[in-house]
């Protein structure tokens, strides 16, 4: 066996490798292990997406309810603020006795962190609709349902999308901690490689998580422009 002069060969947990322990990042090693990272990346996307979709499914109707019945708003804000304030790891541990070790626990925790921002942004968006716009719609003969679907909700979209954007990035980042509970997502590699002197594994998983967040962010920015073309229309511009 030919040992390189710079340092010991990384055993790579059973397999031989051309990488060195003190190398910052070893592309060959990353290429060899791409399958593992790709699988975790896909899982990460799913874990995050499920949480965001469920978060929307809860927060949007709740916001509509609070918009119609202001009484409902304070309890909803208190509840979602409490969820938002609990440290994520503590949350996971608190949930284990109830929901066990698995995806369910992870999703409940992640959904809990989406609610406050989605709820508050949606309520703010709904309330930001100018009163004269609703007055005109009502006087013209739109029904309350048509006003909600055609006027109020579309006008709340910029605020909803702004909330969604922050929530998406946050969820992707929080989902890296899910691996403490159950083997899901890029957090597995991060946990696995974090104590290792060979840092290529940690860098791979970390950078992939960051890239995922950036890509998701860019997608939502694009989607926002697509669904709210009017938001950029100003006098003089087109």
């Amino acid at each position: 066996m030919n040992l390189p002069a710079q340092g010991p060969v990384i055993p790579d947990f059973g397999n031989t490798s051309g990488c060195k322990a003190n190398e910052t990042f070893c592309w060959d090693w990353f290429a060899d292990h791409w399958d593992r990272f790709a699988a975790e990346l896909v899982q990460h996307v799913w874990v995050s997406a499920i949480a965001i979709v469920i978060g929307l499914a809860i927060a949007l109707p709740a916001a509509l309810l609070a918009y119609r019945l202001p009484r409902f708003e304070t309890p909803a804000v208190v509840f979602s603020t409490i969820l938002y304030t609990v440290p994520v790891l503590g949350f996971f541990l608190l949930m284990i006795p109830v929901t066990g070790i698995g995806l369910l626990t992870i999703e409940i925790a992640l959904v809990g962190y989406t609610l406050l921002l989605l709820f508050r942004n949606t309520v703010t968006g709904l309330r930001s609709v100018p009163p004269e716009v609703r007055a005109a719609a009502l006087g013209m003969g739109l029904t309350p349902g048509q006003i909600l679907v055609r006027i109020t909700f579309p006008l709340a979209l910029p605020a909803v999308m702004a909330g969604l954007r922050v929530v998406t990035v946050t969820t992707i980042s929080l989902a890296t901690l899910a691996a403490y509970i159950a083997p899901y997502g890029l957090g597995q590699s991060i946990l696995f490689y974090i104590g290792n002197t060979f840092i290529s594994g940690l860098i791979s998983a970390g950078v992939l998580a960051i890239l995922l967040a950036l890509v998701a962010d860019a997608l939502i920015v694009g989607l926002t422009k697509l669904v709210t073309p009017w938001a950029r229309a100003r006098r003089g511009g087109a």
Partner: protein
Amino acid sequence: MTDSATREGPAGATYRGEALAIEFRHVTKRYPGQDAPAIDDLSLTVPPGETCCLVGPSGGGKTTAMKLVNRLIEPTSGDILIGGHSVLTYDVTTLRRDIGYVIQQVGLFPHMTIGANIGTIPRLLGWDKERIAERTGRLLDLVRLDRSYAKRYPAQLSGGQQQRIGLARALAADPPVMLMDEPFGALDPITRAEIQDEFLSLENEIRKTVIFVTHDIDEAIKMGDKIAVLRPGGKLAQYGSADELLGDPVDDFVADFVGADRGLKRLSLRSVGELADPGREAPPGAPSVVAGTSLRVGLSVLLAQGAEVLGVTKEGRPAGAVTLAEIREAAGS
């Protein structure tokens, strides 16, 4: 009659586009917890195709009276009839779609293009796309905006342009009746005068029965075929043409409201041509104006020149004369 009316709006299928009379019959609106009614036994009829300006001080209930017509506010007692049918018998949504509605703050939908804004009610009425596009184009012509504006968003328009679109949107389904709540109140004086003039000439074309709320008596004189003055407490103080109100106010309240200069205002309603005696010749050196000049301007010319007789010309030829005494008489009651 009323059976079918509960399903069809006042415009119905056949009436759409035709002006209909609006009649208030002993309408009273009382809000719970308030002693004084907001509208007190209001009765008046706006004949088809005419514009009735509701004026009065704040608290006079003019906006309330207007909102009773499209049932944004429901009357406590009494009835309102459009084309002879009580508004209370119509489905409220159908009723409103048959009534053009314009408010001071315009309230265009910021997320819809101008075209989509104008087409809102036609879309809800199930018109096909081509008909809506063709109607939108015609309405943009009517309010004197280029058809290319259809693709823009409200935020890209000036205040005056936005209110023109507000007007076009209210006219979209060709309603027989229009309600306008201080529609030009937020515009600067120049734009306001411009859009008032345009609306007047547009009204000749479209012939709608209009209820026009304003706090500005000068606007009411300019825009209204009839003016209804409401006093605080929602009582009708006087209802009549501008000339009647200015020439013969029923009491001090109306006299105060139309202004101490009501004589001058009355003079602006008539032209020197109407008053001139065609047989009379103006003395040499007398000032002269064209027949279409208002009496108010004629008076101003006489005062400025210290003259007693004003010559009137029509198409460059003398067409009689008016004396200062005659103008004074026309100003009085």
